[in-house]
């Protein structure tokens, strides 16, 4: 079981690393690679990350990345992977804002502020599970079914202990998802304010 978990984690990390590299190359070179090209690159880079290359390295490249980042949450991972596909719709700002608010409250408490530790709920709280199910239903009602699918997959992965962690939070949230959500939310607020200022609402006659 342990071996399976480790191999699976390395496969996931290899794919995630490959996706990030593809996204970075597209961003840096301002060039959109066609889907077929992205898939070929994904297979090439994914294999490059997964298999031990020898040379001066004791481990596959993905293991070095994993050493630093830990395992990504299922939500992070699936959002990242889905960005490769052309049908990928932009993640709703309400979802990002929701994750940002949860992360801002969750991390300080979970990392030692006070005696209340919400991370503990992830080991087996019906309340947390119910809250997560409700959150995913809201995603669907807000016309973002992908969110529901991703969260449902995260819960199933936790039920089968897909990763090393036995804590539901680790399947739903990680610092990278939190950082992305917070930056995206702040960026959205900033853009909205600029648009409002540009529209001149402050100087409109009452």
């Amino acid at each position, binding site marked *: 079981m*342990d*071996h399976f978990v*480790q*191999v699976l*984690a*390395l496969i996931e990390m290899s794919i995630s690393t490959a996706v990030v590299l593809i996204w970075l190359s597209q961003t840096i070179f301002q060039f959109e690679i066609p889907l077929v090209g992205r898939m070929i690159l994904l297979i090439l880079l994914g294999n490059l990350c997964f298999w031990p290359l020898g040379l001066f390295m*004791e*481990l596959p490249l993905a*293991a*070095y990345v*994993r*050493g*630093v*980042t*830990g395992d990504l949450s299922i939500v992070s991972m699936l959002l990242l992977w889905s960005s490769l596909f052309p049908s990928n719709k932009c993640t709703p700002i309400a979802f990002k804002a929701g994750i940002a608010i949860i992360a801002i409250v*969750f*991390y300080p408490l*979970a*990392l*030692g*502020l*006070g*005696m209340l*530790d919400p*991370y*503990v709920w*992830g*080991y*087996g*709280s*019906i309340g947390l*599970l119910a809250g997560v*199910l409700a959150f*995913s*239903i809201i995603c*669907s009602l807000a016309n973002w*079914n992908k969110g*529901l*699918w991703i*969260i*449902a*997959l995260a*819960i*199933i992965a*936790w*039920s*089968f*202990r897909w*990763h*090393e*962690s*036995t*804590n*539901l*939070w*680790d399947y739903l*949230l*990680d*610092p990278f998802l939190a950082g992305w959500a917070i930056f995206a939310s702040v960026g959205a607020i900033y853009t909205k304010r600029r648009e409002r200022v540009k529209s001149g609402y402050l100087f409109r006659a009452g």
Partner: protein
Amino acid sequence: MSRVIAFCFLLLAGVLGFLHIDSRPVWAPFEISATPIPDEDLTEGGSVTKVTQPNKSSVTYPQLNWLPDTGAASVHAASLIKLKDGSIRAFWFAGSREGAPDVVINSAVFDPKSEAWSAPSVVMDRVSAEKGLSRYIAKLGNPVSGRSADGRLQLFFVTVSLGGWAGSSISTISSDDEGVTWSIPHRLISSPFANISTLVKSPAIRFADGRLGLPAYHEWIGKFGEFLRIDAEGVIDKRRMSSGRNAIQPIVFPDSAEQATAYFRQTRGGLQAKQIPVSDTRNAGRTWSVVGDLEIPNPNSAITAVSLSNGTRLLVLNNLEDGRYRLVLLMSDANPSGALSQWQEVQVLENDEALPNERRREFSYPYLITGDGSDAHLVYTWDRKKIRHIYFSSAWLTQLQNGLKNKHKEDAQ
């Protein structure tokens, strides 16, 4: 239609999640294996021996020994566990310096009959750890052992992939043959932030269902204690024992099936009291409360403690506000009534107080266990160069208890 399918899938996930939660083991009480034994050796009535120190003619003095030399320049963080045949296995880390990539976790066995340590062996090195854990590991740290529900020996050890000790995680290996061979390591996930900043230093305690309660601590943004509930799968629950930035390395005394007291190494800054923080639980570790300080100095250095089967407790620490050049053994009354029981210094184990500052050596990271419930084995880092092992026989400890009881009687009169 796609929304209906999605809702059905979510329902399936919800049912699986609920079944997963429902299958979790209930939180068990602490295992209280040590049954109080009558203090037959303790003198009562008029024939009171008014000595605190043992009588040399009747008892064996503490036996001093060293853990076997590995040739490493720096050694630290030794821990002990009793094996099924009555011998004692030690674990410690050794390398060119603390935190160096060449640090390995060593082990050796002490045979109480021959009073000798076996040759050291390497239990874990950095490369084996990273290959087993399928992730980069930069260095190894504190090893602590316990015995899992199925009777196997389990070793918990600290690994760091990035940065200093704040970036630590706990990994574990287990052994079917009392430490001769070991399984591949697996990682314990105990923190939501890339699983960093959880360390271990103190012995695990057992729950009545055989699962382990592992006192751990965070040492990053917060410096606080945590109580991890562990089974073969890994961490199945945990509870915070303190908060803020002032208490690490908890050591837990189970007082009864539901009650326990935890002492910490203080990490306070500024003018705050340099004393031992204390927390307690009254529901087998499900919730912990900070109850104040034990008024014994602690210079931000590790402490160790053990309960003997007659209820007497031993505590070894640097009773200083600054420095680690003095190490003492403290003893508390049998059957203490409260969390903050009375402690008395009964033996100075090391003391470089008379030396100038620059020549004082470090005596740190003590670790105590009892072999048969009435004796005690102590190991500690001796100037970072060696690990000292001291055996306190049951007769010697009984003499100390007698002296302590007599002192209390005199104080009461």
